[in-house]
């Protein structure tokens, strides 16, 4: 029933995943599928554009922790931009911002990842 969807684009070595809809377990798993497929191809820099995902839950965000863990094994990075204030607050409470980065525009995010 989840209306979650995503689009993937690449800017040089950075994989950008733009999400739409509720980032719950279904959304988190869709993001992780893309990340793990791209990691198999050697990519290790991932950005999530969460402009159209203003509602999240801790199960979906927990899957991002799993992605961070896997990226640590390949010296990779995960970043986010266009976060709703409550999503950024949730990431802070859960500690994601210690191990991944929040940016405020796509341009800043791409520069920050390299």
């Amino acid at each position, binding site marked *: 029933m989840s209306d979650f969807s995503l689009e993937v684009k690449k800017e040089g070595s950075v994989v950008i995943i733009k999400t739409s809809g509720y980032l719950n377990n279904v959304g988190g798993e869709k993001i992780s599928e893309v990340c793990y497929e791209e990691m198999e191809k050697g990519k290790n820099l991932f950005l999530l554009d969460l402009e159209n995902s203003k509602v999240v839950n801790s199960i979906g965000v*927990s899957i991002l*922790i799993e992605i961070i863990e896997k990226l640590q094994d390949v010296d990779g990075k995960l970043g986010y931009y266009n976060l709703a204030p409550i999503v950024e607050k949730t990431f802070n409470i*859960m500690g994601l911002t210690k191990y991944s980065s929040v940016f405020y525009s796509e341009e800043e995010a791409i520069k920050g990842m390299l």
Partner: protein
Amino acid sequence: MKKNTPPVVELTLPVLPDMEIAATKTAEVVSKHMGLNEEQTAEINMALIEACINAFEHSGTEKQIEIHFKIKDDLLEITVSDKGQGFDKKKVSIPKIEDKLKSDYKRGWGLQLIKELMDTVEFESSEKGTTVTMTKKK
């Protein structure tokens, strides 16, 4: 002098995927009625989502949960109740991302998020069910 009983909005949710979003729609109407701001409303919604998810997981055979929004003069009080087996509060630890990164179990953040986002949170749990009571001041 007789005290006025605060108005209460009651909601029963079946345990179905994403049904917690229905609770947030009601919370938005109640928050607007009370004049709460956008940030307060977003925090209530997030806490409510987490409380509902926990209740869905613990709801046992009842397969539904009850939510009450009590509209008081100075605060909103929300209770989320399930009729599951309950849980032992002593066994609930504060999650840390450093531990979660090394663990196979990445979940378990709900109570911590509710505590951080709401002004007060209380839990009552027994073999007959669990009720979470949380408040947000105006």
